[in-house]
């Protein structure tokens, strides 16, 4: 009798243990999964990163905001806006790859080194290249997506053409036609008609980028970065990808026009000078979209 009770109770204990184990696997990785995923690698240039080697670095510099589980729920997270990235989702804003795909290792590497303007994420330039690549592998180990999917194919970015008045004007036409102003506003001041209703994927209010106020974009400051931002879209935010409907030459035109909207930028002297020469006025959203820009011959200056 006693033995029977003991058997039953040990069986119950076993069942409870099993339940506990499966409960663990819902919420977080099991020890086994963790050890498997710690084999994650990252490759950037000549460097190979190993998740295992980044445990110390992550615990020292990242865990406070991004959390032990990489879910963006670190101790400091409650005080932050924007919130730290939740790595378990495998979803990233700054990518060279199409919307809905994983970024390249180099995209994550660049994000760590660049930091995120208008957030508390600083540029981690104090870390060595090897430490950063190891961290990329560690960031990847938090999401099972990296074990089932490959990074997306990066879309090509053709060489940047010379800025001309013509291209800036054509860019302005695109700014109206693509309705960038609906969120970013006619002067790029983040005050378009849809700007105050925007939410991110967690249903938290989010502001469009303010070209007039912001000196830098979150995903980089160069012309190529701007090109990449609107072509890839910023996954997890209201900013969609335009790559299906914007040709490469149009994308450069739009980049040049967006530069004219930036008031606090050091990279746009040329674009602003041309805009000034042209006497470029903000678009009128109520006017029909112009079919074509002014003829190049009629454009004052700008052409070299």
């Amino acid at each position: 009798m006693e033995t029977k009770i003991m058997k039953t109770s040990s069986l119950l204990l076993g069942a409870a243990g099993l339940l506990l184990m499966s409960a663990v696997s819902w919420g977080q990785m099991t020890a086994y999964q963790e050890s498997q995923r710690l084999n994650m690698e990252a490759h950037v240039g000549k460097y190979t990163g190993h998740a295992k080697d980044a445990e110390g670095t992550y615990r020292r510099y990242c865990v406070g905001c991004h959390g032990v589980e990489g879910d963006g729920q670190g101790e400091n997270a409650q005080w932050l806006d924007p919130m730290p990235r939740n790595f378990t989702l495998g979803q990233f804003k700054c990518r060279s790859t199409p919307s809905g795909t994983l970024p390249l290792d180099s995209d994550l590497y660049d994000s760590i080194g660049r930091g995120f303007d208008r957030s508390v994420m600083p540029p981690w330039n104090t870390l060595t290249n090897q430490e950063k690549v190891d961290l990329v592998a560690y960031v990847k180990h938090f999401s099972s997506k990296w074990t089932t999917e490959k990074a997306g194919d990066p879309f090509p970015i053709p060489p940047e053409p010379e800025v001309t008045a013509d291209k800036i004007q054509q860019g302005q036409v695109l700014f109206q036609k693509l309705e960038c102003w609906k969120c970013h506003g006619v002067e790029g001041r983040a005050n378009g008609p849809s700007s105050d209703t925007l939410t991110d994927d967690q249903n938290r209010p989010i502001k469009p980028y303010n070209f007039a106020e912001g000196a830098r974009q979150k995903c980089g400051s160069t012309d190529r970065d701007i090109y990449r931002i609107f072509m890839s879209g910023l996954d997890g935010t209201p900013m969609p990808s335009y790559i299906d409907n914007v040709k490469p030459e149009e994308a450069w035109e739009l980049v040049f026009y967006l530069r004219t909207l930036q008031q606090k930028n050091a990279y746009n002297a040329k674009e602003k000078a041309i805009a000034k020469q042209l006497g470029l006025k903000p678009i009128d959203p109520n006017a029909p979209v112009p079919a074509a820009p002014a003829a190049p011959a009629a454009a004052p200056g700008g052409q070299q």
Partner: protein
Amino acid sequence: MKKQSKQKFAAVLLALVMAGGAALTYSPKVSAAGVSVTGTVKLDGTAPHQKGIDMSKEPSCAAIHKDKPVTMENVVAGSSGGLANVVVYISQGLSGNEVSSAPAEFDQKGCQYIPHVLAINPGQHMKIVNSDQTSHNIHPQPTKNNEWNKSQPPGSPPFDVAWANEEIAIPVKCNIHPWMHGYFAVVKGPYGVSDDNGSFTMPNVPPGSYTLTAWQETYGTQTQQVTVAAGKPATVSFTFKVK
């Protein structure tokens, strides 16, 4: 001797067929001898008030609806007590894994999604169309598929989209026009979506015993057992209670 080898051959063949059959039990083709399962979905109670939509921020869409104001579509009840936009699908008992090749289209018209709920198989292709004179961004927010967000300016060609995994249901929205919301119900096998009268048709259901699930965005799911006999169209009805 000859006869023996023939028998042997037949036995091997039989074993092969059986093994093949066993291996295929997960994904044999749905037989063409399927019948349609039709039915109605009713709403028990008074449909909750649906908020009106103010489209004045988008004049091109507001103009389309100037004679008939539009409302949200969380619960769309017809005059005869029918409940629209309910997805009915086989949640258990389906042995086939056939992907419908039927054309599926999701239109953005008058700053509304038409249909409000689109059912589709995993792997089935759908077209996303922008019939409006304004830009939309199509922003599905799945949990079991990959999320993406694409802009579709007026006059641009349709997007061809397929979903890899079952998911009931993927909410889709337009960030530019925050009132726009709809669903993609990604379900395996035959499915039907109820119309304004609450009527639905699931075509080509092979004979068998199934659990049917009806999903409605506000009221959740209901299930029901049904047995479909060969050559005999079946009827089923669901009733959702107003909560």
